């Protein structure tokens, strides 16, 4: 799979491949990584313990890194997740040659500063990263699942349908805000079935 396979030659002109070779590969090579595949969308590397992909997303033009241990469980992590776990939130997106190069330079620097433990497969590192991913997923999913319930409960509150308010808020009882808790208490005292 070479760059010549890329459907749109325009992507090759962005210089993703050249930037990865120039800036990221020198960070990975000393850690035992060797390149296994490359295209204008992804570079794949593998060490004795870790598999890694540098990705320029074909649709969103986001640039990022995924990596996972070869040994099971092969928890899949991202550079963005690694940084988020360190309290630093960064994402990269570029659709111009200068933008791509700037992003890759920054990513290489972040890898150099934050990635050593992960890239060498250090014990405990992946377990910690995965716990953080699970926590983010839990919060994200909960927000998505509960938002329609909160919206419906708010609408029911505004029209004075306290039975509905009670039903809806009780379904997310453990996650109610203080205001929602007060509304639930009020709804309980003003609806039948208490």
């Amino acid at each position, binding site marked *: 799979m070479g760059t010549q396979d890329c459907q*749109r030659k325009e992507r090759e002109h962005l210089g993703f491949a050249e930037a990865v070779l120039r800036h990221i590969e020198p960070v990975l090579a000393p850690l035992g990584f060797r390149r296994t595949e490359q295209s204008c969308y992804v570079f794949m590397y593998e060490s004795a313990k870790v598999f890694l*992909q540098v990705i320029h*997303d074909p649709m969103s033009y986001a640039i990022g890194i995924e990596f996972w241990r070869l040994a099971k469980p092969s928890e899949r992590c991202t550079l963005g997740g690694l940084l988020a776990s360190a309290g630093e939130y960064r994402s990269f997106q570029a659709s111009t040659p200068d933008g791509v190069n700037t992003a890759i330079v920054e990513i290489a620097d972040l890898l150099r500063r934050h990635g050593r433990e992960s890239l060498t497969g250090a014990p405990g590192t992946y377990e910690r990263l995965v716990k953080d991913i699970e926590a983010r997923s839990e919060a994200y999913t909960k927000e998505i699942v509960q938002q329609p319930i909160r919206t419906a409960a708010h609408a029911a509150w505004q029209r004075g349908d306290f039975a509905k308010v009670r039903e809806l808020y009780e379904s997310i009882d453990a996650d109610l805000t203080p205001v929602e808790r007060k509304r639930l208490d009020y709804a309980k005292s003003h609806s039948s079935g208490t």
Partner: protein
Amino acid sequence: MAKGGKYARKAAIVANRAGDATHAADNIADAAKVAESVRAPNRTVIGKFDPATGNIRGIQPNENSLLKHLPDQGSPKLNWQQNSSVLRTEMGKGVPIRDAHVDSAGRLLPGTPDGISKFIDAECNLLRNHGWTYDPKKTLWSPPAVK
């Protein structure tokens, strides 16, 4: 091994084939039909493109994509316009859509920082803004009339 052409057709959306239209029947609120759609072949899937396979990561047999409808338009903005348009068309069928960008417990993985593509988050927002709800047990997005 994925070919470059597949990359260029990458999409955050995977979708039905023409046969799926039969599932977009009139009585989508009917619980039995919902159950049927959950088991249905050729179901629409959204998720993250996998450069290693040239397809959506986690896509199952009998699930299909609309990758062919999502050629690279040359910029993230144009790609999102195309992507969102295709997703809205798919949503218009009123059939549940599976989300493959999830963990083993069915929890959604945010597009950032744990998925690289912001389109994943944008797709979730598009679905939510149109009243679709997500069920972690089935990993399905369902339209407002279907619960």
